[in-house]
């Protein structure tokens, strides 16, 4: 399966899950579908048959509210049956609205409160360095999440300890919970912030699979530096009426909306 095909499956799964479960955050999940498809389809060294493989690359979704996309990616690459996705967000399901590891093979860390993932990823990267192991640790953050001070604590630490096995990817779709990033807590000059913290920083188009794959494969571009990719994305990417709309941070597609969204995805 190409990463493009995997991204489409992730989006269709997420659409189905949001429709069946009435869950929110579909816009956030669509925003990262291409990044996840490239990671799970190409970049990450993992083994769905052995989720605890010792030298696997680690991936942490720090923006846990987009967990549906990770569940979909894991299921589509074989960590658990795709059929299970239908239980998402439902009574009695362990596929919670924010990503949870319990009972779900392949999830490295449960998140949901923002600002946790990068610190844990940093600990994993530090531990790997200490042991002389060479796998990489990836953490995917939202842009709004960068309001949380804990990320900058981790940023200081990772650069200080030269964790070049650590990769942060930021889903920079420029929208947060109520309005734009710019109108809430401006992050610009964003790349310069990371650079000044000592990170190997690169801005990339977040839906271009070729660029994403090359970027992730280039790590570490500078030995001794942690890497951050500021991925310029579109919230709700793939369904025109969801794109760049804060509404779709919350709204679950029903009826005609669901049909229209599915049609757009299939025709793309």
């Amino acid at each position: 399966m190409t990463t493009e095909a995997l991204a489409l499956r992730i989006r269709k799964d997420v659409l189905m899950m949001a429709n069946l479960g009435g869950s929110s955050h579909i816009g956030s999940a669509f925003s990262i579908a291409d990044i996840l498809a490239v990671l799970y389809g190409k970049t990450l060294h993992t083994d769905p048959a052995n989720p605890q493989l010792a030298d696997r690359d680690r991936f942490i979704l720090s923006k846990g509210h987009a967990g549906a996309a990770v569940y979909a990616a894991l299921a589509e690459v074989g960590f658990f049956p795709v059929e299970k996705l239908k239980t998402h967000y439902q009574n009695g399901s362990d596929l919670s609205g924010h990503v949870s590891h319990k009972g779900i093979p392949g999830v490295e860390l449960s998140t949901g409160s923002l600002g946790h993932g990068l610190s844990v990823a940093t600990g994993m990267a530090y531990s790997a360095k200490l042991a002389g192991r060479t796998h990489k640790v990836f953490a995917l953050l939202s842009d709004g999440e960068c309001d949380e001070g804990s990320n900058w604590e981790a940023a200081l630490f990772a650069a200080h300890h030269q964790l070049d096995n650590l990769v942060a990817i930021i889903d920079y779709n420029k929208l947060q919970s109520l309005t734009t990033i710019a109108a809430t807590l401006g992050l610009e000059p964003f790349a310069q912030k990371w650079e000044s913290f000592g990170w190997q920083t690169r801005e990339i188009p977040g839906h271009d699979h070729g660029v994403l794959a090359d970027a992730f494969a280039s790590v570490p571009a500078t030995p001794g530096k942690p890497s951050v990719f500021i991925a310029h994305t579109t919230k709700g990417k793939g369904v025109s009426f969801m794109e760049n709309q804060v509404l779709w941070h919350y709204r679950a597609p029903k009826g005609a909306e669901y049909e229209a969204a599915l049609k757009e995805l299939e025709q793309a």
Partner: protein
Amino acid sequence: MKEVFVQKLISLAERDPRIVVITGDLGFGMFEPFQQRCPKQFLNAGVAEQNMVGLATGMALDGRVVFTYSIGNFGVLRCLEQIRNDAAYHDANVKVVTMGGGFSYGALGISHHATEDISVMRSMPGVVTLVPGDNWEAGEATEAVVKHSGTTYLRLDKTVADTTPEAGEHFEIGRARQVRAGSDITIIATGGILSCAVKAADSLRRFGVQCRVLSMHTIKPLDTAAIVQAAQETGGILTLEEHTVEGGLGGAVAEALLDRGIHPRVFQRMGLRAGFSSIVGSQDYLRRHYGLDETAVEAAVRDLLGRRS
């Protein structure tokens, strides 16, 4: 207590390479011997407690046994959500340690008064909560948390009781330790303030009052058997903690008894009731000020005995 903790930690870390200690930039004059003996197992995370616990979780999920160290509230309250979501929910081998239980740093002000941590931590699902009362318990508790798989909290105190173990005595998580035998009444204490319970009991003994004293070094899991036994075998229960009475040791003991339909003849919780302390002073001074010293404990026991008969 912290000296015992560090010495024990050195001996454990030298034998167990999984052990790592992360400090939140505290422990001057304390961690140097550890750093010298186990340099690769020591890390200063800087003044960044949230990141410290996140790091600890990441390292623990990679197979290590990770201690986090800070003073009083910083190591618990500042990073409470990291302890809850990251460490505890993942059953990670994160061993949270704070120095400065109660008024250990009484003169430094309310930021340094650790007076709600026990209730907060004992409400965390699965988090073993240890509050040693003497140096022996502190050392044993340090070893016990390494053996225990999962997230733990260890609260260290500046002053300690001078109690010592009996020959062959074993420390066990979740098993209260009887440091004075008696059947007239039971004082259940947790933390260094155990010293006040023991002093009060020893003083009362001279007047023919036999107080049983239990050191409840484990708040969670709680030794309900010892509590029930105390309620049934002695004339009443007095709990003592350098901590708010809301939800701490006293609350835990009361819950354990009422849940089982056991009603001690008399019952009293001694702890902090006055809210935040804007008054500062030494640990001894503040115990006296808030009526938690040995004199107050002795008076409370006399009062309870009077109410009983």
